[in-house]
């Protein structure tokens, strides 16, 4: 069988660093080819070269045997390469039909043939099994439907190679099933899918072969049917490292530090009776939309909610984030780039910002560096220096800067973590959980929301399962197997 795509000896240099150093990638027709590697291994750069966003410094690309060198993303798409980015590049205020045929709408002179466009869009949506109307505005659709729209867009361009960059990061389990079905039908038509993901279960399930990148080089190509996942993970991280920190210690006992009697947001959540002891990590499991984020935001005073809770025996009143912080609550928000960090500002200014609300009011830049240094050092933030803009750091280091912000402030009683490991690689995840555990050991009560159940079972002392806005069950991961908990997460039924 001839190859659909062959990238040979791809080199890409950026000022001061070599992002890709001779990468090889070969994709067959009708195959799901997984592209794996830790953050910073070069996956995104490689895909941007394929799509035409970047120009390689060296190397050749063959598409169906013919030399291929897209100068722009538009040229890449025209040649049959469609990339579906994690941050979906759909225009939220336009309709599905407008998005699907953006720039390629059927026209009659200067006029758009709306009926024909709607028909074409409908056909594309039907092929991915999407039932929503083509006149819906993208903003109003749930994430999974937006994902399907992005895939349908790739189909209207008649793409031969479809690149999916971490499609699962924002999807719930059932939504992911739907996307997987679409991937299988695409490959059945002979199209090739390049699938980028950090979740090994998905990779093993959907992938045919995998190319592992490490430090800008191809570390290996594996046939997934005959390779164990440990071998692949080992190739990704280069050395044997445990996947996630294990809960190897007894659960803390004593009086709860945070005692949530009820959190009620009409129409969204009604959660009752969650206690967190000092030093305890309580996990919040649930499908997308089950109310994990809403619960944390309500506790942090970030949305209007009826909260009846006690902190250290005293009633907790949080009209807004500022008073939540004063009370000793700290939030690591869901989206570190939009909600957690000032990307243009330096590492030390980001880490210092929450600690400044108290005297001394004068803050010479050097004092800011001095007060943040212990936290940045103990978390092991890797940066060119405290003056480097935080937007230039890797995801794991960015997340650590968010943590450093709270550690520098000091006086944290309750740490609220919302999907803290989203988009992080295996090593960075383990490292982050180690830091969280370290904080818990100092007596901090931790509420940890995650859609990665295996991370919760490995790191939480107890797991509260949220289902459609209610906490339906509580498990001890030392006793209950993951499959039992997963069943409750998906069905809402208690065993």
């Amino acid at each position, binding site marked *: 069988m001839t190859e659909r795509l062959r990238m040979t000896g791809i080199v890409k240099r950026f000022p001061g*660093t070599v992002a890709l150093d001779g990468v090889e990638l070969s994709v067959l027709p009708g195959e799901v080819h997984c592209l794996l590697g830790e953050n910073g291994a070069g996956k995104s750069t490689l895909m941007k070269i394929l799509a035409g966003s970047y120009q390689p410094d060296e190397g050749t690309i063959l598409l169906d045997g013919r030399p291929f060198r897209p100068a722009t993303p538009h040229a890449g798409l025209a040649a049959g390469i469609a990339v579906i980015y994690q941050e979906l590049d759909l225009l939220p205020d336009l309709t599905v039909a407008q998005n699907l045929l953006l720039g390629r709408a059927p026209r009659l002179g200067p006029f758009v043939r709306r009926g024909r466009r709607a028909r074409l869009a409908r056909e594309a949506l039907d092929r991915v099994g999407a039932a929503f109307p083509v006149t819906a505005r993208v903003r109003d659709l749930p994430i999974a439907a937006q994902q399907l729209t992005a895939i349908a867009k790739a189909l209207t361009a008649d793409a031969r190679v479809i690149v999916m960059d971490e499609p699962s990061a924002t999807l719930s389990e059932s939504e992911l099933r739907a996307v997987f079905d679409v991937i299988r039908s695409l490959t059945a038509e002979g199209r090739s899918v390049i699938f980028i993901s950090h979740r090994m279960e998905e990779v093993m399930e959907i992938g045919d072969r995998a190319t592992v990148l490490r430090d800008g080089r191809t570390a290996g190509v594996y046939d997934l049917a005959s390779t164990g996942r440990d071998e692949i993970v080992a190739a990704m991280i280069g050395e044997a490292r445990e996947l996630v920190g294990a809960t190897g210690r007894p659960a803390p006992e004593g009086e709860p530090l945070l005692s949530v009697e009820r959190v009620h947001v009409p129409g969204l959540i009604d959660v009752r009776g969650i206690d967190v002891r000092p030093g305890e990590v309580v996990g919040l499991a649930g499908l997308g939309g089950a109310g994990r984020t809403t619960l944390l935001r309500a506790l942090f005073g970030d949305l209007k909610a009826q909260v009846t809770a006690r902190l250290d025996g005293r009633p907790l009143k949080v009209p807004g984030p500022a008073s939540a912080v004063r009370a000793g609550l700290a939030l690591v928000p869901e989206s570190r780039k939009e909600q957690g960090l000032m990307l243009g500002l330096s590492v030390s200014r980001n880490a210092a910002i929450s600690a*400044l609300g108290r005297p001394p009011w004068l803050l010479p*830049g050097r004092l800011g560096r001095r007060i943040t240094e212990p936290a*940045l050092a103990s978390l*092991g933030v*890797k940066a*060119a220096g405290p003056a480097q803009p935080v937007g230039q750091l890797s995801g794991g280091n960015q997340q650590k800067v968010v943590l450093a912000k709270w550690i520098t402030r000091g006086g944290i009683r309750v740490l609220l973590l919302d999907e803290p490991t989203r988009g992080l690689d295996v090593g960075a995840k383990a490292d982050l959980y180690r830091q969280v555990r370290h904080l818990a050991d100092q007596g901090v009560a931790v509420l940890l929301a995650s859609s990665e159940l295996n991370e919760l079972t490995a790191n939480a002392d107890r797991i509260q399962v949220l289902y459609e806005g209610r906490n339906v069950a509580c498990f001890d991961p030392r006793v209950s197997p993951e499959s039992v908990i997963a069943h409750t997460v998906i069905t809402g039924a208690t065993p």
Partner: protein
Amino acid sequence: MTASIGSTVTATAGKDGAARSRRGADLIVKSNLLLVFLALCVVASLLAPQFLTGRNIANLLQQSSLTGIVAIGMTMVVLTAGIDLSVGSVAAFGGMTIALLMAAGVPVVPAILVSVAAGAVFGAFMGGLSAYLSLPSFMTTLAGLTAVRGLTYLLTDGKPAEASGSEAFQLLGGGFIGYVPIVGIIFVAITVLAAVVLRGTTFGEYVYAVGSNKEAARLSGLPVRGLITTVFAVSGALAALAGVLLTSRLTVGQPTAFNGLELDAIAAVVLGGTNLFGGRGGVFGTFVAVLLLSVLRNLCNLLGLGSFFQMVVTGLILLVALVLNMLIERRGARA
């Protein structure tokens, strides 16, 4: 813990170089403007011998100081990713208020305080509306631009107001110490004060944080709304101060004064390298930009070029500066 993780903030050779070149780029952006400014001064003194006379320089400083004071307040607003279109009207209101107060026999100091405070209240109101109701400041201050100008006309039914002030009051806006105009000293003092506040205090750090990412600042527990309100109050107060100083120099309050001041101030802020989307920039750039623009105007005057020509040149200079800043910034971002 693995060895690579347990260490402190580690500096790698490549990244260090990148950071250095970025610092270099920052320095170029800043000194670029200064270099252009100095070059312009050299050109001006060659083309027009009168340029480098003490009297001309003094006049130049006096003319640019009022716009400069307003531009400093505007810089702080823009740093929080806001904009204040009402400064011209607020300045005119401040100028009229002090004229009327002086005419009514109110002593100088309380009169100045009341006028400046009125500007602060206008600013706080418009900024507060923007902050607490999540309205774009472009809109609230556009409303302010019209409404406050109307109020200013209503004070005297559109007629100028004589400020029968004391000698000391007239010195404030029109006096010189040697060749140095007093308003120039006030301009420099306000710039330095603003620089210290922005670079050295918690408040200044919050300004940059809010401008850089409002949502992250809020979730970090920062008083975002109060801060935005305060910044607009400062801008309003400085605008009213400029009005007071103009009335002091002219000894008469003009309700039509400072028409279009907001555009001059914004032009200076942008030329000074402050990002209109907030979070980046500072008052030093604005200071140099204000001087640069008025040297340009002065040069055109000395060469006998009309004001129509001046407008074209000013616009072109702004464009060139924006493109230059963009190119340098893009270079810095890639590193």
